[in-house]
């Protein structure tokens, strides 16, 4: 066990865990933020996507000891204009079915729009193919990302 200070959504949290504990479980079990989901634990599904210093990261596969002083953002702390546009578009298109993958999808989609305000279908496929949706809501994810991009124009 070791003490760590995690900076999550702008707040510092002291936790005492095994250094190998994946960031995902520190966020969920120690900090108590449960919007970030567990789907595979092996960086295959993207349900656990968070930002570490603004980069999308699979939190199930990043040990707490490697986070250091980096800023972590979870779905609860998502406030960028891209994120707001994405969440609006998600509701407008009724993207979610079971919804369990959608925190991760929204995190990845908002990050994509931050880097590329006008993604093509191919850009979307490339940026989003690390996020599995077992309900296969992919058609609507694509459409909603295009809508969000449009809403951010001008």
């Amino acid at each position, binding site marked *: *066990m070791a003490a760590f200070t995690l900076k999550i959504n702008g707040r510092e949290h002291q936790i005492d*865990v*095994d250094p*190998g*504990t*994946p960031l995902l*479980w520190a966020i*969920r*079990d*120690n900090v*108590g933020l*449960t*919007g*970030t*989901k*567990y*789907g*595979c*634990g*092996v960086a*295959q*599904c993207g*349900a656990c996507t968070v930002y570490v210093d603004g980069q999308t990261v699979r939190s199930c596969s990043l040990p707490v000891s490697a986070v250091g002083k980096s800023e972590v953002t*979870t*779905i*609860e702390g*998502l406030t960028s204009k891209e994120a707001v546009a*994405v*969440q609006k578009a*998600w*509701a*407008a298109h*009724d*993207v*979610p*079915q*079971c*919804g*369990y*993958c*959608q*925190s991760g999808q*929204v995190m990845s989609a908002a990050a994509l729009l931050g880097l590329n305000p006008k993604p093509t279908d191919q850009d979307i*496929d*490339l940026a*989003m*193919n*690390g*996020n*599995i*949706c*077992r*309900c*296969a*809501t*992919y*058609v*609507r*994810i*694509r459409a909603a990302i295009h809508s969000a991009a449009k809403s951010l124009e001008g």
Partner: protein
Amino acid sequence: MNAHVKPAASTALSRRSLLKAGAGLVLATYVARNGVAYAQDGAAAKSVNIAPNTFLVIGQDDTVTVLCKHIEFGQGPFTGMATLVAEELDADWTQMRADHAPSNPVLYKNLLFGVQGTGGSSAIANSYEQMRKVGAAARAMLVAAAADEWKVPAEEITVEKGIIKHASGKQSGFGALAAKAMQQPAPANPQLKDPSAFKLIGKEGAVTRLDSVAKSNGTAEYTLDIKDPGTLTVLVARSPRFGGKVASFDAAAAKAVPGVVDIKKVPNGVAVYADGFWPAKTARELLKITWDDSKAETRGTAQLLEEFRARAKKQGALVKQEGDVDAEIAKGGKLIETEFVFPYLAHAPMEPINAFIHWKGETASARYGSQFPTPDHAAIAQVLGLDIAKVELKTILAGGSFGRRAQQSTHVALELAQVAKAIGPGRPVKLVWTREDDMRGGYYRPFSLHRMRGVVRDGKIVAWSDTIVGQSIMKGSPFEAMTMKNGLDSTAYEGSNEIPYQVPNFRCDLHQVDVGVPVLWWRSVGHTHTGYAVEAFVDQLLEAAGQDPVEGRLAMMADKPRHAGVLKAVAQLADWKGAKLEAGRARGVAVVESFNTYVAQVVELSMGQEGPVVHKVWCAVDCGVAVNPDIIRAQMEGGIGFALGHILYAQQPLEEGRPVAGNFDSYRSLRINEMPQIEVAIVPSTEKPTGVGEPGVPPLGPAVANAMAKLGLPRPTQLPIRPGDTA
């Protein structure tokens, strides 16, 4: 619109407690009460006989919360039930909310099952009238209350978009009149609207899903998110082979892991209790367990396939016969024979299996995504030795199911209660299965084989024989009596025994085999394999007969207007006859009825380096009255993506009885870059509404196979199409 994921009144549904919580009207009595009511809280326990049949709570803030007797894990029953109620109540959509009804087999039974449960794409089908009546009765009671209050005749009162009005200028929302409405007698048979007056049912854009916002911002609560104070996370080490038992174990190293609270032997294996997932998982890996495999299944799928093949050479138990297939084969003509092999499939819902319970000694309360609350409830009570009235079971949102959470064996409820019992009362426990536990934990779509034989003569299909070898889902389950005829499991042959085509000589027979691998219904159940076998084979026979796949099918469907209807609709949508395809592309078609919903699909694909690439799917669906058109489209889209991922990549092979695939790296799932474009047409219908959760799945696989055949490739006879592919 926010889902009412945790309304104040969600766990205390007695009439009294709802009133306390500020709910104005709690609507009662559409299902006959027989004096049995399951307690949901202390207050109800004291008054078991007066628990009302509550489907609807009108708050003083005008919100209308529908208590949904079906679990919401993506297929949209929250929105569907609320649509039915709101339609007859003349509510405004923005005031509607939904939450899960608690477990109560009397009040909240599925009218098709007789117990509370979700499955068989039945939510809308069994609730269509019931929920409309709830809305209509509530409306009548509100109107009566207004008439009373305003001293005007009820007939002069109108209700529109949540506002109750009289010509005198008097008007009110629902909330202000709700308490008074509750004093009014509930009409026994409230008048329902004529469909021509519908404002929400079947109307494009009239409603949006009630759960979209909460599911886009991380606030929707699933079982994995439960964090009641003092909750322990429990992981169980289970036998790597089905039927294996713990012979002995050494927990010394596991116990030393910081955060581990206890380790106990339980009927399924060894349970690790810890104050979080990671310590529990770390400790579980340090357990040294010797397994007793003397009663375990030790055959692998390669061996099973050999055994199945050998059986298929002989005729099985007769399911259906018309004419004389053997005589027709003996007469000559073009005899076509093929075999189709279908692997074990895991459901792999995005949220792996889990469940929560707090056993307090005299009472217990459980919360999780229970798809069959009635048997789960009884199982928990039995393990804990409690009267069922002392056990509360609350269904919450679940991250998908595809059949996995509908456990007729109640194995998760049992394991949950067993781990709670093993550590003793007063310790809330959250049982968590890892993804690997889920993939390797059984309850698969049965491994099965179809041996098909058909005769084509003079351009016509004159004989058809389908010998099926497979495992029974229902045998030994509480549903055995209901679903098995002459000892044969209808879910093993549904769709193969009643094909939509007129063939004069027909036979379907079944070898029902016992394998020690637990199996379960998997999104569209028997149709997952019978749909493929029938639709790939009929296409092959029509090809041999020199007929067009659409015209040829239609010619044999004279007495199947709804099959023909969707087939014609999809042909039109895709411009089957006229479309000019890019070089290297081809199209295939298939039509399958399941759960009384008719779906036809056309697939356009080309062959990539590694296999088929599906570019576009056209889909026509006839599900009777279309209650929520956009949810129907969403279910067709999702069903198509789910089906495509599995026919391309998915299988759970067994080696010496041990399931091999453990995660999405070895059980590959469809990803967004592989998702085709999809166009859906809903065929207008005035028939009773039927479900859409499953029926989008079956036609996709055979339509892919049939398109491959158009490119001169064999129709795949062993699924998945790309077995070697992992992510």
